Structure formats: structure tokens, C-alpha cells
């Protein structure tokens, strides 16, 4: 594939990309809406699907910029962003959001965990710092902790741990 291809796709969030059952879930009131920002397409699709399987609604973005441009920004209850991305990193995205007064609880994920970077992130208000590949139980507890209420279980999740 060409480099341009992911960028073109990035401008169209995966929210409406037609995976089965999406419409049903997204109509449910009270179910949390989670944004996933990751430049790697397959990682993003997998994360979006896992979050949905955990019972949340989810929407994927290929870059921090496309997320910031999104009209759905205000509807997001939680943000899960990759640390290493070309252009704006996950941490920069969090700082930008915080700076513009949009307080979306943020979870950073990375395939290259680093203790110093983790502490730096938590100091500036990132809720959780988790490693890839995403473990379902860990992700679930992180989302719950990030949004701050235990009731934030995914609707229809049969086995909340």
C-alpha cells in the first residue's frame, strides 16, 4: 500500500464502517462512547472491535488531527490513544485537549512501555498508561477507572470482572 492510503482512510472515522451490530449499540442511551486513536490501521480496527466487544461504543481515528477535527469530539466519554504516532503523539493530543478545555479522560497505550514516560504522562493528567497488545480485562478496568464510575460497564457485557 502507499503511504497516502492510510491517510486518506484516516479522514473517515471507522464509526460508520459498517461492522455488524454497530447501529444497534450506538442507539443505546447511556452506553459510553470511546475514541481510539492509532495510526496503524489493523491495530486501530482491532482495538475498536475489542472495545465494542467489551460492551462500549467505539470510534476509530487514524491520527490526532483527524480526531480533533471530528464533529463527535464532544460526545466522547473516553479517549484511548497510541503514544507513538507520526505528527501529534498521544501525549500531545491529551495536552492539546486539556489546553483547550475539553476534558476527555485519556488512556495512553504503547507497544514500547517506558517507566519514565508513564510517570510523565500520569503527572500531566493521563488516567492510565497501558501496554499493547491490549488485554481485555485490563482494558475494561482501565476504562472504568478512567471515566470514574463503576457503572460504566459495557452494556450487555455478560462477564464484567
Amino acid at each position, binding site marked *: 500500500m502507499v*503511504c*497516502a492510503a492510510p491517510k486518506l482512510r484516516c479522514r473517515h472515522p471507522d464509526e460508520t464502517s459498517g461492522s*455488524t451490530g454497530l447501529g444497534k449499540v450506538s442507539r443505546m442511551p447511556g452506553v459510553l462512547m470511546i475514541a481510539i486513536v492509532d495510526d496503524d490501521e489493523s491495530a486501530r*480496527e*482491532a482495538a475498536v*472491535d*475489542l472495545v465494542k*466487544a*467489551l460492551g462500549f461504543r467505539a470510534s476509530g481515528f487514524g491520527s490526532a488531527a483527524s480526531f480533533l477535527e471530528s464533529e463527535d469530539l464532544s460526545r466522547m466519554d473516553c479517549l484511548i490513544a497510541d503514544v507513538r504516532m507520526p505528527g501529534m503523539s498521544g501525549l500531545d493530543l491529551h495536552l492539546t485537549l486539556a489546553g483547550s478545555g475539553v476534558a476527555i479522560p485519556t488512556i495512553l497505550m504503547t507497544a514500547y512501555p517506558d517507566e519514565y514516560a508513564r510517570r510523565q504522562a500520569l503527572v500531566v493528567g493521563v488516567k492510565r498508561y497501558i501496554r499493547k497488545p*491490549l488485554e481485555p480485562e485490563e482494558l475494561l478496568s482501565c476504562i472504568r477507572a478512567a471515566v470514574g464510575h463503576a457503572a460504566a460497564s459495557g452494556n450487555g457485557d455478560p462477564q464484567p470482572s
Partner: protein
Amino acid sequence: MAGWRCFQNSAKPFIRLRRPITDRREEEPDAPMTDATGRHPFLLTTAAPNRRQRRLAWGILAALACALLVAAPFARLILPGTEIVIPAYAAAAFLVEILTSALLFALFSVDRSRSVLLLATGYLLSGLLVLPWALTFPGVFTPLGLDPDIQVTPLIAAVRRLGFAGIILAYALAKKGRPGDRIRGPVGRVIAGRVALVLAGAAGIVLLAVLGAGRLPAFMQDARNVTPLWSVVPAASVALYSAGLAALWTRSRSTLDLWLMVVLGTLLIEILLISYLGGATRLSVGWWAGRFFGLASASVVLLVLLSETTTLLARLARSVRSERLARESRLTAMEALSASIAHEINQPLASMVTSASAGLRWLDKDVPRVGEARSALERVVRDGHRARDTVDGIRNLFRTDTRERVPVDLNRLIEGIVRRSEEETRLGQVSIETRLQQSPLPVTANPLQMEQVVSNLVANAVDALSTVTDRPRIVRVTTRSQGGSALVTVEDTGPGIAADIRDRIFDPFFSTKPEGMGMGLMFSRSIVEDHGGRLWASDNRPSGAVFHFTLPSGPASGAEAGR
């Protein structure tokens, strides 16, 4: 996909890897210091003298010859009372010869050559014998109570002069680079043994001279004048010096040999002044002139040897350092490359784990969501293929058949690549044009590697167009024969290559793309050069970049195919 494409472009850097790293380590301590025959190319004993050194050597000899002519008319004039200069002369001669000997012992410790050891021994003996020569010189150290037989001094002088001449001749004759010339065993012990031997020898010579002075044939009539018997010593010296010069002249000469020839020439002039022009009369102008010219020349030779040794050592140190730097940068490049490879493989693996977890979750629902589970599994399959492609790409790098060359029609190869990149170009809204030479364009090449080069250049061109919005996005591939070469150009209408990065685009790990490894152009260039061609970049007009490469056209030449 953009990432693993880079791996396909296998080339020399990776083939080099196949040589085990441990092998390199074992070779390295010696590698920069010895040439193919195991000699040290930087040492005085093996390095050939350059023109500047030869000129200096001839200059010294010419100056001495002039001095000889100037001193000749006054050679027999006696300078009474000049005995007091003898201690100063002896001290200087002692120091010069001991230092030269130390230098030669140091040379031996690296060179291990028997002949250099012999030479060092000769200098040490000569230097040591200067002391008793001066101490026993009539009228010099008398106030200190030293007043030996007048025959002691000439005995020591004769042994010193003939011994040194004989040793240089032995060096010149022995040192023919025979295999048995090298001495094995601990250097320190060999040198210490040799120094002890010389000390004992010198002491023995002095003792014999003192004890035997009355019984041996007399060399001196009185304190100043020699007996006719003495004439044997200068004659024998002249014969030995000449033989040594001839031996050094006829064989292949090293820098050390050149300076030894200067030394012998000097000694020859010295003995002419002392024993013939000066009439062998002590304290005559000729006698003094010979000694001082000899001393001056020996000092110059010592200084030259010192400075050359220092220069050679500095050069050696530099080459060791550059070797180490090269190894370090190679390691750094390898670390960066392994990190890139790990990233390329980890990325799909992580996605597979996440997708599989999601799939399990969908199936664990009260009412299993088979549709969602299926699409998660489909992603697992897709990512699995992606990981396999990456691994295949890496494995391709290590294929043994990259040197296999067959006749290839570049036109057909390019048509195939253009056809296969249609999906990419359509997605990128790029139109790809070909202007191929009508007739086939035969080259001898590795088809797999050539495909990698062309597809890498085309992919780069397509990538470069991704930001273009105000003009048509066009990639044009052109081929034609030019001289004895096939010329291929890949041009685009993108933003072109910025001047400040132009020099770096062929460097490893240099990339302008966020997900680029920065290996593609480096590999492409090394593949093309491996095929005997050239790859370079230029500007397209009005905008964009053009990459050109040439390959020798036609069937392989014998050399190319046989490599």
C-alpha cells in the same frame, strides 16, 4: 505494507552479515597492522622509503662529502689540548647510539625479526664501548686517577668499529625476509637477555683490553701516533662498510635500510677523515672533523628514525581508530535495523492478539455474536498474512541466489511492476505512464533484485504525490538504450527533493516518511551498483524528482557473470 516493502530490497549490506561476527573479532587485533603476507606495512623495516626520505638521505651524504672537502686541506693540523672535548663527544655519541638501540629494540618487539635484534645489539655494543674508550683516552681522565696503558684505547676502538661494521654487514646479508628470521617467545625476555649479553660482552672486551694491553701487538707509538699495524683497522673497516653498502643497495630496501646506508656512508667518510686524511693522528683536524661529522650524521639519522616511528605509529593509531568507528557505526545501524524489524513483526502480532481477544468476547456473550467473531477472525487471518509477508521479506534478504544473474528484458519487467502497482496508484489517484523503448531492453541481472529496485522507485514516486493537490499526479517510467547501457528513469510531479536532504537520501535509515525505514534507496543503489550500474536523483521540471539508473546492457561479460 509500506514498511515491509523496504525489506525486500536485499543487497550487499545484508550479505555481509552472513560472515559471523566472532570471526571479525578474532582478526581485528592484527587486521589493521599486517598486510597479506603477515608483515607490518607501517614499520620502518617493511615500509618502502618515499621520495622525500630518499632526497633527505642523499642530502645528508652530500653535505658530509662537502664537509669532507672543506676539512681535507687542514686535516693533518694538530689541535693540542682538545682532549677536554672528548668526554662531551663521548657522552653525545653514547646517548645517540643507546637511543638508536632502544628504538631498534622497540621495533623488534613489534617486528620480531632476528636481523633487527642484531642491529639493536650492534648499536648497544657500540654505544657502551664509547664509555671505556673515553675513560681510557690518554690525558682525559688522568686527574681522576685513570691512567691505563696507551694500548687499551685503540683496542677498544678497533673492536667497536669493526664489530659495528660487521654487525651491519651481517644484518644486510641476513635480512632477506626468510621465514626463520622471526623470533618467537616473550619479547621482554629476549631483549633483556640480549642486553645482558652485550653488557657482559662489553665488560669482557674492556677487561681483555686492559689485561692484554702489554701482551698484544701495539697499535700506538705514543699518545697521539699510531703504529703501522693500526692501518689494518681502517682498511678492514672500509672493506666492511663498502660490503655492507653493496649488500643494502642490491636488495629491496626498506626505510630502515635507506638510513643504514646513510649511516654506513657517514662512517666511511668518518674513517677517511680520521685515518687517511688526518693521518690517523689523534686530535688532528681530520680526526676531530671525522668524529663530529659522524656524530652529527648519526644524530640526524636518530631524529629521522624517531620522527618516522612517531608518524608511523600515529598512522597506525588512526587506522585502528577508524576501524573501531566503522565497527561501532555498523553496530548502531544493526541495532536500528533490528528495532525496525522487531517493530514490523510486533505490530501485526499485537493486532492479532487484540482481535482474537475481541473475537472470544463476542463468542462469550449470552447470545454468541458469530458475525462479529467472524470479522475479528478475518482480521487475525489478514494480520497473520501481513506478519508472514514481513518475515518472507526478511528471509529474502538472506537468500543465497542474489548473485544469480540471468538475461532480463527490463521493459517486460517494468510492465509487470506497473501492472501490479495499479491498485496502489488508483488508491492514490495517481496515473502511471510508461514510455518504454520499442525494442526489448536486455540486461543481465538478478530479476528479483531488479524488481525490488524498480518497484521501490515507483512506490517512492507514488508516495511523493500523496500531498499534491494542485496539479496532476503523474508517475512516468521511461527506458532507452544509451551507449552501452540501459537507462531507466522514474519521474514524478511531486514536491521534489529538498536541497538540504539531497545528499542524505541514499543513506541508511534516512527517510522522509513517518513509517519509512529509510532503507529502500540505499538497497536500490547498492543493488544497481552491484550490477555494474549507477543510480542517482535529479530534479523534474517544473516540479518533482527523477530517479535514474543505468545497467550495462546485453549479455553478461565474463567477469560480471563469474563474480
